[in-house]
């Protein structure tokens, strides 16, 4: 549980940036991408993209894979799934709390 919460903090932090969300959007199309592909139509430099990819890698959202001489990056949906489950739990808790509020004010 403690580890999960730490991971979640890292995932949230990784997602809290528009450039990184854009990188995820590109990568989640399914194909691993090279840094060059990810740098195309971006205003950012290769170095900046690399830095953002490193943050995503630390959060486990992106993994590096070797393809011959080139390094490519692929999307891992698991951390996002973890976040989705977490949001589902928070959402479920509100449903229960609001149901209690309803019977509280309507009685």
């Amino acid at each position, binding site marked *: 549980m403690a580890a999960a919460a730490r991971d979640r903090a890292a995932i949230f932090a990784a997602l809290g940036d528009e450039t990184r969300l854009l990188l995820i959007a590109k990568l989640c199309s399914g194909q691993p991408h090279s840094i060059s592909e990810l740098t195309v139509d971006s205003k950012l430099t290769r170095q900046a993209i690399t830095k953002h990819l490193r943050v995503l890698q630390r959060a486990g959202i992106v993994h590096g894979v070797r393809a011959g001489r080139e390094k490519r990056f692929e999307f891992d949906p*698991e951390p996002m799934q973890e976040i989705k489950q977490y949001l589902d739990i928070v959402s479920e808790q509100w449903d229960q709390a609001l149901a209690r509020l309803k019977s509280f004010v309507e009685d």
Partner: protein
Amino acid sequence: MNDRIEKRIELKASVSRVWQALTDYREFGEWFRVKLDGPFVAGEVSRGQITYPEYEHLKWEAVVQKMEAERLFSFTWHPYAIDPKVDYSKEPQTLVEFKLEKTATGTLLLLSESGFDKIPAGRSLEAFRMNDGGWTQQMKNIEHHVTEKP
């Protein structure tokens, strides 16, 4: 994936009744299941002890943001902070807003909890709508990936 949780519920009670249930600290505690130390005051920290069965060991802590009579009550907190061993201060704080609207039969309560991704509500989504391909489609892709790998 959403960066906010939104709920709407129709209550057969007057706006002032609902407002009281939300902002009187004892009444809030009744339905939310928390024993609060004192009244809610905008800008101040609210502390207490959870009274929900099996979670009684947990502390409640939130910062009251807005109290606009019979319209808006909001606070920031760490959602779902259920493990006392975990330091939730590193997790993002979310904003919880209760908005009240008068209806023919009582009150419409709109609840939202936002800020899960640390981006001001809606901004990330707006940013993506302006991009080719669109955020909606990309989110569908993510959804697809996620459901593919249960």
